[in-house]
């Protein structure tokens, strides 16, 4: 063990002598430089190990042969060691990152850098206020000088602004220190008693703390920092944003015990305000580094708030929340700044170049995910616990500010990510150059984030490894990624099978039911993906991740486990959607809505009472009386995922733009996750019905979703979009039936869920086959494919019959059950609307089959073949399934009846093939035969009597010697239901889309408005600082 003061000594001595060493060559000075930095890391790492593992007590180092308060003392405890380990490591890695620069540049840069790191060590360890001032100045001056490591006009002017702002802050700090001495006669933190301060002594504390707070870059007194982030060399920026910030936040932490509670509260609020506004302003930002600057400033605000609000919590929680935010933000930020230095593209729109460098893209993605607080990264756990804490403290405004700010952050971070994955490669395109040192540092940091994630999961939560199966899947498949796609597909199929086998013994039949939808449905859908050629990097990893997280939703035993699975599901589906060719916007829309929903759920779960039994959440929740607010929040969260009206706009985009074999997963299975969630809410609800009947309104939303979805589907030109809106409509039926909260309602909801899974999978896969052969999804560009793709035709035919709810197929049963349940409940109006929706759905279903398969075959489709076998297999399976439950509805009704029987008294009688409700009976088997008969008899008559049919030749429908401008507009399927749209009048306008569009515009213009305060004028920035100080002073009100 080495006395940590040697860090300071050695750095100083080396710093003093470095320019002498340099006389004998840069090599020597570089060796000295890097050895000292490495030495620092090892000393601190050793101490950190002692404190954490061996439990050594805090170390105090006196100087000058006297003890405090006579002389200055340093302190190294577990907290100091943690911060310092992190700071020194970052310092070392940033130095490695900068090695090329250091080789070329003036020796002074090495000296400055070394002493900067020394300053950080001193600043963190010292307990003396004035000594803090000195170290703060060391830190500042070396940073100021290093801002011009790459010297240009921008970095110079930014450096100057930084200096004057820093100068003002340190003047206030000095004043504060002196007045602290005046009031207490002491300068040592350990000897200052907060109660020594008289009323006016608070001003001393105020000056001291506001100066530190200004250094933490609060909104709006932080313009200088943004300029620095934007213009300074990336390596140095990472040091400023990470190492310096870590040290200063620790200084804030050290002086916190002196601060009165009201001042702390103000700082807490100021931190949240900073977080909110920085992220809001980030929305408009197009410069990569400045964007990171905004995010960085915001995260510092969040960090301050988290320190202040957790201060009275148990230690473990503080470590998790503050430590989580701390490491998460700082590591991710350093890594991202380094990547900006590697990519060397100022504008975010040019970042499409990143997709040419897969490795860097992965690093970038991981860091961005970490920054946006997605599991398993530390930020996720910190956010979850922090929100829980705040919600328990009833600080809803803070919660709102933080979550809304996070949402903005998600918007710009993921926008950036989608550009990197899908954006255009800039035309003038200098390749990303490879510099080992830069990659090295970044990779190490990504590794550390992942390690910390694992450590958190292991030491703070006792999760079952099953909870992390989604992640394990991604990792394993990442390493198997070199295998051809088909083999990976088969392996995935097997993996899903084994997973299902292990999952199987469920606690309840409801889980089993959704297990079949999630697992079996997915497994069958995987078959379609076997059609993929080549390697398909990353596809199966995220597919498995998604499927496993579906399954994990079922067995989650706590709110956190459920939410974890939910987040895994969201992120994996996001990546899958993003794989689509033009899916940049769609996936962004998806992740934004999903995150918003997830945040609402997060608040909901935080408010929910503790679980009393150790069963799966869906069972345990029946014992719990969810407050109405929780019900509302959770329901909204789940309804976003199931695409209910108002929050559905992500749905058509995501379905349409995802790759065609991914769409069935999203439509048929992913939407059911929301349905599952709604059932969960319902189960708690029926056991503890609150005064406010929320499900009445959910019912209405479901009904409206059904009808609007049907209308919207009718107007689509794009087959997948049509199916997407159809899914929306169908899930609307399901939601509405859940909302009935009766035996019959739930029975029909489950029944329709199952049906919808099958027919929508079949339809999407059929369309996938068509798209695969014709390369178009626009329906009026197709036609007559019945001859070329007969099997697909049959599959679509069966699918749409099943959807439409006409006899004989299962859809009829579903509709019958739904109407019965509505009428039984007395929701006549709703039933009427639903009935109308069913009628509307004929419009789009007709269109689907008519435009694609009937009519004239297009010339360019002369040589189209039947869909590939891998598409046909799942279709056949689903068709058989549909036929089977149509013929023998009992196969499914019987088990569903027993499931729902757990929650409601049975209201139907199942007798053989006959199902009787209070309103009548339904015999699927008989209906099948009757319908078949009705169908077959006229068919035979037609065939017999009307033998002289004639096929219409293409000649027959040409224009009179005229060739129209754009021929497709004359196609019957072009803008097919325009007249209906006209009939709808004002109702046909995309109001909801417009609403969200306006919201988006509004947020962006707000963002533009607020950032006007950053005029770029250094003087204005100082004015902001002074005004900020004054305003905080008045708010504090001494």
């Amino acid at each position: 063990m080495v006395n940590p003061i040697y860090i300071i000594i050695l750095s100083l001595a080396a710093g003093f002598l470095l320019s002498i060493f340099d006389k004998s060559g840069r090599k020597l000075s570089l060796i000295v430089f890097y050895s000292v930095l490495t030495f620092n890391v090892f000393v601190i790492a050793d101490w950190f190990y002692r404190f954490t593992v061996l439990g050594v007590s805090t170390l105090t180092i006196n100087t000058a042969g006297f003890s405090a308060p006579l002389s200055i003392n340093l302190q190294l405890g577990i907290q100091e060691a943690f911060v310092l380990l992190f700071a020194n490591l970052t310092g070392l890695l940033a130095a490695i990152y900068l090695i090329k620069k250091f080789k070329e540049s003036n020796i002074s840069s090495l000296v400055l850098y070394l002493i900067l790191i020394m300053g950080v060590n001193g600043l963190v360890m010292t307990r003396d206020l004035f000594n803090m001032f000195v170290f703060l100045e060391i830190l500042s001056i070396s940073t100021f000088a290093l801002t011009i490591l790459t010297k240009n006009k921008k970095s110079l002017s930014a450096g100057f602004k930084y200096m004057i702002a820093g100068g003002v802050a340190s003047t206030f700090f000095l004043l504060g220190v002196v007045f602290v001495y005046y009031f207490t006669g002491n300068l040592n933190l350990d000897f200052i008693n907060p109660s020594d301060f008289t009323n006016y002594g608070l001003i001393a504390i105020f000056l001291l703390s506001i100066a530190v707070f200004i250094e933490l870059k609060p909104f709006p007194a932080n313009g200088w920092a943004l300029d620095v982030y934007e213009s300074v060399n990336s390596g140095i920026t990472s040091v400023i944003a990470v190492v310096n910030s870590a040290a200063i936040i620790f200084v804030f932490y050290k002086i916190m015990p002196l601060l009165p509670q009201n001042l702390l509260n103000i700082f807490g609020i100021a931190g949240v305000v900073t977080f909110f506004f920085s992220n809001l302003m980030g929305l408009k930002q197009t410069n990569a580094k400045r964007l990171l600057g905004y995010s960085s400033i915001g995260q510092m605000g969040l960090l301050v708030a988290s320190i202040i609000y957790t201060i009275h919590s148990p230690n473990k929680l503080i470590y998790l929340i503050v430590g989580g935010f701390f490491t998460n933000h700082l590591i991710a930020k350093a890594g991202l700044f380094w990547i900006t230095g590697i990519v060397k593209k100022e504008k975010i729109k040019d970042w499409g170049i990143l997709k040419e460098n897969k490795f860097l893209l992965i690093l970038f993605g991981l860091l961005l995910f970490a920054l946006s607080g997605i599991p398993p990264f530390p930020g996720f756990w910190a956010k979850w616990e922090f929100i829980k804490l705040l919600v328990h403290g009833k600080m809803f405004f803070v919660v709102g500010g933080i979550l809304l700010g996070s949402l903005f952050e998600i918007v710009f971070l993921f926008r950036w990510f989608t550009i990197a994955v899908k954006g255009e490669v800039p035309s003038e395109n200098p390749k990303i150059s490879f510099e080992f040192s830069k990659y090295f540092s970044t990779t190490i940091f990504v590794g550390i984030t992942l390690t910390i994630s694992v450590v958190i999961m292991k030491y703070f939560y006792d999760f079952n490894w099953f909870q992390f199966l989604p992640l394990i899947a991604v990792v394993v498949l990442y390493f198997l990624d070199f295998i051809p796609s088909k083999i990976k597909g088969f392996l995935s199929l097997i993996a899903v099978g084994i997973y299902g086998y292990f999952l199987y013994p469920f606690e309840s039949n409801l889980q089993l039911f959704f297990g079949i939808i999630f697992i079996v449905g997915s497994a069958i859908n995987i078959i379609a993906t076997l059609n993929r050629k080549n390697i398909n990097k990353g596809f199966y990893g995220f597919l498995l991740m998604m499927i496993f997280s579906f399954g994990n939703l079922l067995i989650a035993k706590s709110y956190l486990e459920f939410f974890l699975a939910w987040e895994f599901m969201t992120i994996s589906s996001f990546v899958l959607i993003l794989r689509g060719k033009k899916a940049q916007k769609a996936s962004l829309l998806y992740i934004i809505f999903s995150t918003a929903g997830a945040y609402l759920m997060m608040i909901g779960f935080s408010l929910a009472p503790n679980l009393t039994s150790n069963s799966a959440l869906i069972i345990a929740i029946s014992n719990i009386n969810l407050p109405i607010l929780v019900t509302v929040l959770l329901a909204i969260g789940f309804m976003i995922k199931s695409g209910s009206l108002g929050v559905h706009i992500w749905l058509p985009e995501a379905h349409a733009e995802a790759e065609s074999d991914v769409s069935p997963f999203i439509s048929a299975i992913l939407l059911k996750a929301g349905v599952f969630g709604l059932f969960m809410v319902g189960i708690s609800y029926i056991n503890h019905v609150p005064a406010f009947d929320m499900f009445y309104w959910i019912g209405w939303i479901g009904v409206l979703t059904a009808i609007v979805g049907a209308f919207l589907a009718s107007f689509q030109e794009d087959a997948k979009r049509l199916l997407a809106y159809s899914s929306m409509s169908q899930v609307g039926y399901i939601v509405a039936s859940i909302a009935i909260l009766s035996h019959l309602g739930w029975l029909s909801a489950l029944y329709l869920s199952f049906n919808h899974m099958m027919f929508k999978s079949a339809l999407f896969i059929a369309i996938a086959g068509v798209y695969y052969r014709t390369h178009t999804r626009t329906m009026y560009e197709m036609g007559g494919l019945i001859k070329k793709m007969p099997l697909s035709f049959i599959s679509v035919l069966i699918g749409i019959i099943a959807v439409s709810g006409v006899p004989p197929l299962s859809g009829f049963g579903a509709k019958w059950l739904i109407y019965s349940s509505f009428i039984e409940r007395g929701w006549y109006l709703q039933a009427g609307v639903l009935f109308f929706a069913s009628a509307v759905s004929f419009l789009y279903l007709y269109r689907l089959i008519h435009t694609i398969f009937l009519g004239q075959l297009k010339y360019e489709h002369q040589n189209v073949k039947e869909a590939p076998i891998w598409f046909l297999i799942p279709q056949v399976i689903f068709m058989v399934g549909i036929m089977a439950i149509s013929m023998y509805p009992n196969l499914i009704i019987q088990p569903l009846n027993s499931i729902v029987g757990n929650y409601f008294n049975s209201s139907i009688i199942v007798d053989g093939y006959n199902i009787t409700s209070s309103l009548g009976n339904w015999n699927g088997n008989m209906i099948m035969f009757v319908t078949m008969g009705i169908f077959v008899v006229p068919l035979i008559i037609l065939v017999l009597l009307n033998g002289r049919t004639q096929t219409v030749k293409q000649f027959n429908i040409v224009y009179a010697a005229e060739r129209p401008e754009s021929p497709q507009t004359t196609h019957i399927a072009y803008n097919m239901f325009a007249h209906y749209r006209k009939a709808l009048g004002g109702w046909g306008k995309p109001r909801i889309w417009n609403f969200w569009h306006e919201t988006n515009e509004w947020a962006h213009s707000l963002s533009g408005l607020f950032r006007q305060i950053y005029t770029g004028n250094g003087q204005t920035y100082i004015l902001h600082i002074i005004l900020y100080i004054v305003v905080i002073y008045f708010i504090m009100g001494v």
Partner: protein
Amino acid sequence: MIVALILGFALLLIGIYGMLSQKNLIKIVIGFSIADTGTHIIIVSIGYLRNRTAPILNSAVDISKAVQQVVDPIPSALVLTAIVIGLAVTALMLSFVVELYKKRQSLSIDDYQELKW
């Protein structure tokens, strides 16, 4: 001495006002250094005790009663450090000014706002 304290605060405010109102970069630095001087005067005047001498215990001071005779040495020590630091910051600021001027031939702070928003 209260007069010195007031003087110190007055200079501090004047200096800050200068930093806020003057467009010329050198004037801004002058403002900073005036504010700095003000701060130093404040610190020294806090350490002052009425009718006492400098904390130098030579023959003029009765060593055994020194505690009752000298002014507070701590603020003096702090100011000494602060003055040197002030010099360092000022000098660095000025070299930034020189370099900035080299780039754009202007001393007006309004000409250096290409970074914004």
